[in-house]
């Protein structure tokens, strides 16, 4: 099976649940297990939330969600045109957060990495960030 969706949304917190639900519905034909579905929903929620809080902060911007399925492989891309990440390696360290004041725990990237098969982050300061996540379903 091969299929793809592209969704453009505003960086509003209401869209965090929307993004999870859309991806869950889109991959439903692959019959993922409850655990797989929950892993993917959580990873999507982390990436979209990061674009909203860190990339755009108080402003409103565009987030592009792409989900592609090919056989048993799910590929998700979350892209923003916000602040960007200067030091990706440091940002991905467990417990690192630039916003401890907002009760962030610095676990988002760690969650994405442990719940998905592969995570790639591309970012450029002041241009934006692209998070590519792949999950191979059983």
């Amino acid at each position: 099976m091969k299929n793809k969706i592209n969704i453009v949304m505003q960086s509003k917190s209401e869209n965090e649940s929307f993004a999870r639900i859309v991806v869950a519905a889109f991959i439903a034909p692959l019959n993922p297990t409850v655990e797989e579905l929950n892993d993917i929903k959580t990873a999507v929620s982390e990436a979209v939330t990061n674009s909203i809080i860190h990339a755009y902060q108080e402003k409103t911007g565009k987030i592009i969600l792409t989900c592609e399925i090919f056989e048993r492989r799910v590929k998700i891309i979350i892209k923003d045109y916000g602040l960007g990440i200067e030091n990706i390696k440091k940002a991905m360290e467990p417990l690192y957060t630039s916003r401890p004041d907002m009760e962030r725990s610095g676990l988002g990237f760690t969650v994405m990495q442990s719940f998905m098969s592969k995570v790639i982050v591309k970012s450029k300061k002041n241009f934006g960030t692209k998070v590519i996540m792949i999950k191979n379903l059983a």
Partner: protein
Amino acid sequence: MMQLDVLDKNLIVKIKCDIDHHVTDKIKEKIERKLELLNLKNIIFDFERVDFMDSSGIGMLIGRYKFVDKIGGKIYVINLNPNLKPIIEMSGLKKIINFDCDLESVLKSQRKSKAE
């Protein structure tokens, strides 16, 4: 979204929605207002109707832990949905919050330690 009750000087917080960044600030504000208003220090979260939680929820729980820990209070989570177990395990929250209890056992142990 959530319901607050008081039982034996515990604030019972029953959350009835997904816990993500969209709701955590509201949950935090409501809890802190109530704790201060009624002078309570323990929080029992009832997660029976929480099917989903991401790291925003972890941050919210750590924040409430820090808040009650200063005044000698404790945090309990009851009726944990299996969906939430992987993220709870990952977060290390089990070191500071009790997840393996039910309402009866919490109240019982509190009454016991009070009587002693």
